[in-house]
């Protein structure tokens, strides 16, 4: 199977384009899917054509319009856009995992392909949302979809119903901690326990509870091989940690 190679910006080009965005006072507008600073991996596949990149752009813009783009948007609209865009990027866009692992591909998305959507999704121009790290606006959405939603052919099927209810804070806690949740099975298990706990305990401050639970899981992972636990043990461990966090909250209130 030939891998489809996506354009990317190296760190040098990312820094330069980001500096221009950061200094620009008005809304950032899309210019073209082509950019002289964008490059492709030298070998190992065939270059994605620019028509496909335009299609991806159009699809993402259409999703954003459904949720308020280019006007101001509320938290729930953002949450729904994030979910649908995560699913689109991980399931339909055709970006192979090896290319999606490259920071430079996501820097191309935010700074060249859909800079207007990046500006709308994260007003305020924080570098981490534009550059190619783990908090890149579209890289993190792909990561959510890949880790929690996508079918990895391991008998668990798809997990979109685990991803959909997660709040922004829960997603940050779960997904943006690669030492804890770089494994799809572990990430989805945490997501499913989070959803159940929230369903069963309406009114509980989930942010505080999630932070406590994730702290415990991160500490647990240092001496225990969380990813190696059997299905039941892993579920039991994550459940226990969330239940303990719930008990801590009750004690404090």
């Amino acid at each position, binding site marked *: 199977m030939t*891998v489809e190679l996506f354009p990317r910006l190296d760190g040098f080009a990312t820094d330069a384009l980001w500096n221009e965005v950061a200094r620009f006072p008005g809304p950032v507008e899309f210019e073209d899917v082509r950019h002289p600073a964008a490059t492709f991996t030298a070998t*190992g*596949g065939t270059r994605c054509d620019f028509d496909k990149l335009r299609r991806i752009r159009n699809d993402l813009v259409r999703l954003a319009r459904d949720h308020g783009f280019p006007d101001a948007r509320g938290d729930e609209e953002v949450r729904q856009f994030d979910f649908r865009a995560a699913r689109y990027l991980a399931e339909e866009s055709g970006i192979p*995992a090896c290319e999606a692992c*490259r920071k430079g591909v996501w820097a191309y998305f935010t700074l060249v392909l859909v800079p207007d959507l990046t500006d709308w999704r994260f007003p305020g121009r924080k570098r981490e949302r534009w550059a190619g790290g*783990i908090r890149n606006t579209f890289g993190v959405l792909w990561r959510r979809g890949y880790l929690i939603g996508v079918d990895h052919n391991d008998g668990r099927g798809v997990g979109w119903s685990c991803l959909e209810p997660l709040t922004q804070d829960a997603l940050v806690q779960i997904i943006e901690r690669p030492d804890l949740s770089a494994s799809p099975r572990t990430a989805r298990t945490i997501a499913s326990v989070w959803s159940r706990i929230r369903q069963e305990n309406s009114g509980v401050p989930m942010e505080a509870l999630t932070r406590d639970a994730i702290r415990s899981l991160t500490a647990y992972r240092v001496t225990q*091989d969380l990813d*190696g636990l059997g299905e039941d043990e892993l579920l039991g461990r994550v459940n226990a940690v969330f239940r303990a966090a719930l008990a801590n909250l009750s004690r404090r209130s």
Partner: protein
Amino acid sequence: MSEVLAFPFLRPGRSRIEAGPWMGPDADGAYELPELLPDWDYSVGLGLHRTLELDLDGLSSDTGLGPSSSLLLHVYVVTGELKLRKCVFDQALRDCSGSLQVQIGPLELEGAELQGYIDLVTVLSVERAERIERLAPMAPGSRLWEDQFRCRLEGGGGRLPMETRDFSEVSARYALAPWYFRLEESRLDDRFEAAFQVILNTRRQDVLEAISRKETLMMSTLQGDLVRHVVTRLLRSEEFTLRAEDYPDGSIGAVAAAWLDAAFPDQEPGQIRDMLEQRPADFEAIVFSVFGGAA
């Protein structure tokens, strides 16, 4: 830099598990997987295997686990700049006595699922514990032993990775700069040539031609500026210990520590940082004197 951890349970001595190197087959037979795999791209899958010798009697005695305990052996692959982790091998060891040879693999890793590097992480953990001693591990998953090997799939090669670009295509503000240094300062354990890059401006033909002719003045200026840039950036990071022995050979941390040792022999890390902070001109003059002098 590796962190020292105090485990809340007994763990086996290093000699109880002998791990052979990761091997990869090629047309001529097996070869030891190198730290840097040349000529790899997405179309190249990897077939890997290794052997583990386990002294289970010794392991039980060290850890306080009884013979009816069971253990789990897993191999994980971590790959990519966005760090994805996948289990590629698991085996339960149900009889925890005697000695055992375990063949791991062959593991087939698809090239299209890898990027940049692979960390092969082998973990021996507890599945079910029969505890003989109070400090024996109890919880399923208790990590008894772990081994990690990194193979870089992309990047690296020359000691000083350079590339040329037309800077005006990237930003009008850099259009006439002679060079630009890219440093991943958070990756102190990474190989120098993977974490650092010099980009030369094709608009500055005067500089490019002087470098291609290896003119002494230009080369010494570039070298002095490069060392100044790297050590100054790293000294501002609290993570950087300035001790070469804290970092793998050939890593950016080890190279920068060796440079600082050459420029500031017999000075403590605090003294060097103070000089950079309080007397930056002296600091830079010393670095340039050592590394930017005529060859």
